[in-house]
């Protein structure tokens, strides 16, 4: 998931000349949403929305599982992460094919 998120964001270079800012924001969100703070700390109304983003599945759920194993949570985490890997793989292949059509090869 980490690789695919960064891959999709990096490919914005097909459209914008300077894309480092997208990666900064992604890194900070990864840190804040589930690495620095447990997801339980966030208001209850936020949590369903967090699960609609990769950040709700990246760091905190695996760490929590390692600390307090629960087979139901393990299954839920595995299916959630698999869904995100598939979605991000599809997104990266779509973004790459759209972006590569904009590339003008100058030889060399």
């Amino acid at each position: 998931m980490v690789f695919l998120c960064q891959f999709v964001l990096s490919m914005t270079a097909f459209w914008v000349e300077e894309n480092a800012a997208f990666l900064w924001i992604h890194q900070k969100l990864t840190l804040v949403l589930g690495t620095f703070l447990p997801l339980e700390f966030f208001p209850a109304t936020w949590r369903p929305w967090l699960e609609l983003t990769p950040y709700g599945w990246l760091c905190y759920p695996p760490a929590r599982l390692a600390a307090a194993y629960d087979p139901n949570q393990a299954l839920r985490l595995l299916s959630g992460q698999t869904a995100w890997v598939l979605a991000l793989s599809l997104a990266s292949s779509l973004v790459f094919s759209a972006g590569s059509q904009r590339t003008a090869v100058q030889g060399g």
Partner: protein
Amino acid sequence: MRAYARLFAEVLRANVAAVMEYRIPFLVQVFGMMLNNAAFLIFWAVLIRHTGSIRGWRFGDVLYLWALGPSAFGLAHVVFGNARQLGLLIVQGDLDVYLLQPKDPLFHALISRTVPSAWGDLVYGFMLLPFITHDPVRIGLFALFTVTGALVFVGFFSLVQSLAFWLGNITGLANTMTELLLNFTLYPETVFPQPMRWVFYTLIPAGFLAFLPIHVLRTLDWKWLPVIAAVALGLLMASTAVFRAGLRRYESGNALGGRV
């Protein structure tokens, strides 16, 4: 002095014109940096919502940290954008172009670049200000501490980077020192154990950059004002002295360069 002010204004104008040449990437970096900083406020807001306050620091006080730190860091890199490249210029022998000109080479080298994302840091700090205070005295003090903080950043970075005259490539050490100063500046002083706080007023000057200025902003305890200004100017003078001492060891890279 007037000639230096004119050079400063002209170089700043040229730097702004250079970054505006690529307007969209510039704006992406500015707004990206502002969002990047805002992500940390989510962290503090959620944390303090649970803890109430952190050893006397409430969310409003943390806002001061996150306004003053980025705005001072931003101003330092907007105006003296080469401060963290100085070591590289020294090691690669790229100072020739500044040595051949009549103005002070350190001053000229430092101002010769602006960092686009730093404009986002600078604006971000001032954008947070209305959420912290509407008191004109405190707003004026904040602007003043942004300047003294920028001088502390530049003095500290120049000092560390000038060690390249003796130590060669010091990118790793310089990056570590930068991270230390930046990270200490962005956390409340009281989260650190009392015995280690002397570091913030000696080796890593985060105390003069953030903690003392925020104390003055909170309490209007004016006696610290001259101390903060003196340390900022003192650090700048120390870095100039170290740079000049190191310059005797400088070896040119024989690269051709020019300043128009």
